[in-house]
């Protein structure tokens, strides 16, 4: 399969993923309260794309999902997309610089992305003119959402990986690691 064809298929899958994620978020997940908190799927999908595809796809995905959320919920346009593209960019950079491989990494990154999204949106709201004082309940709900999103990050990443795996380009670093873990000889053993 040519690189251009692969990129096109990846783009198509990312677009479908964005639409499905926004639809699920606004039609179902936003209305489900789990122990007083509401999960936010959008930053988790952006996180998963960032961990699997890198900086640029994640930032673009964050921008696109943000626009769709703002349009669907009749919110001030641009705020959610700004917050999510920053979150996507951060996860993409994290993947490129650190490439976290721990099984617990998605949990921590998911919580961090949810924190960026929730707190960023809140700061944006205050900058746009919400004059009321910060309440403890708001802080509590923000924390609940961050914890819930952290827990959901692992299954969301697994689902997104499953969806994107057939069209993901090979990562040379991963191929190298696989050679060691699947029985291949290390340079020392070869010597």
């Amino acid at each position: 399969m040519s690189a251009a064809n692969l990129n096109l298929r990846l783009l198509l899958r990312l677009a479908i993923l964005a639409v499905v994620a926004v639809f699920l978020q606004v039609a179902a997940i936003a209305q489900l309260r789990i122990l007083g908190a509401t999960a936010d799927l959008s930053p988790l999908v952006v996180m998963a794309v960032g961990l699997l595809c890198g900086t640029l796809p994640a930032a673009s995905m964050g921008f696109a999902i943000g626009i769709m959320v703002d349009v669907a919920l009749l919110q001030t346009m641009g705020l959610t997309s700004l917050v999510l593209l920053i979150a996507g960019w951060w996860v993409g950079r994290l993947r490129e610089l650190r490439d976290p491989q721990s099984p617990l990494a998605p949990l921590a990154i998911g919580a961090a992305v949810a924190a960026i999204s929730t707190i960023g949106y809140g700061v944006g709201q205050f900058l746009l003119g919400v004059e009321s004082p910060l309440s403890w309940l708001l802080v509590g709900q923000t924390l609940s959402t961050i914890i819930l999103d952290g827990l959901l990050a692992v299954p969301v990443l697994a689902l997104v990986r499953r969806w994107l795996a057939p069209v993901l380009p090979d990562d040379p670093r991963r191929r190298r690691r696989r050679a060691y873990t699947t029985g291949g000889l290390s340079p020392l053993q070869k010597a």
Partner: protein
Amino acid sequence: MYDRKTVRRRRAVLGLLVACSLILLTASFGEGTGGALHAVQRGVANVLSPVESVATGALKPFRDLFGWVGDTFSAKKDNKALRSEVRELRAQNADLQDAAADGRALRKLFDLDGDIGIDGASQVTARVVFQSATVWYSTIKIDKGTADGVRDDQAVVDGDGLVGSVVDVGSNWAKVQLITDAQSGVTARVAGTGGANLITGTVSVGSPGNPKDLLLGFLVPRLARSIAVGDVVETSGIASSRFSSKFPRGIPIGRVSKVNENEIDTSQQVHVTPFASLRNLDYVQVITAPQA
């Protein structure tokens, strides 16, 4: 790992996306509800509304399941509080029966049968299809619009009391600003006061993110000492210098939950718990036209 050209290109794309977001934000925040971006949002909402309505209906069992799990945790506490409230209400009911008889006689006497009130108003029942995905409890979207007689600024209630007002409307949907939104303000009065004892004010959000805390502020008279916990607050139908009145008089808003003398002295405000359950709205009614 990446050459300089790739890095520059990525930074350029990021800069472009950030600039696009900021331009959209500025344009969307600055323009009125009739602006181009709002028109796009309304157009998309018109197209998506039937799909959303079907999806919301189909997913209701799942929402109910999660709601049931959550409700179970608080059911015991609610049960105790409700039993106590029932006892109080039984006692109040006897007093109110007498008061109602007096009221009927007085209304007949002063020919006030045609007064604006929620009982006599035309109402449209609507299903809530979207709730704001954030923790701010600011807006909801309903599945009725101009085709059903819904217009901007109409009051929205649920079975318990005032929910908010219509701020944007399409042919088959409407956006409702909740009374817990930071921009919302409702002119109100303390029920049971009148004449020289009339206490009025403006109900606004108490703590952002807390759907059970409103403030009755800008009290008139400024030192309203007679106000007490348990007093019912209702719409006054009076326009104030801060907010135009969108609501017919007499729609119950909530009950005074906390009165702090220092707060009255310094801020002329008391706390109110809304009657409407703003956290779990399934159906609401839009008061489309008061009966003449």
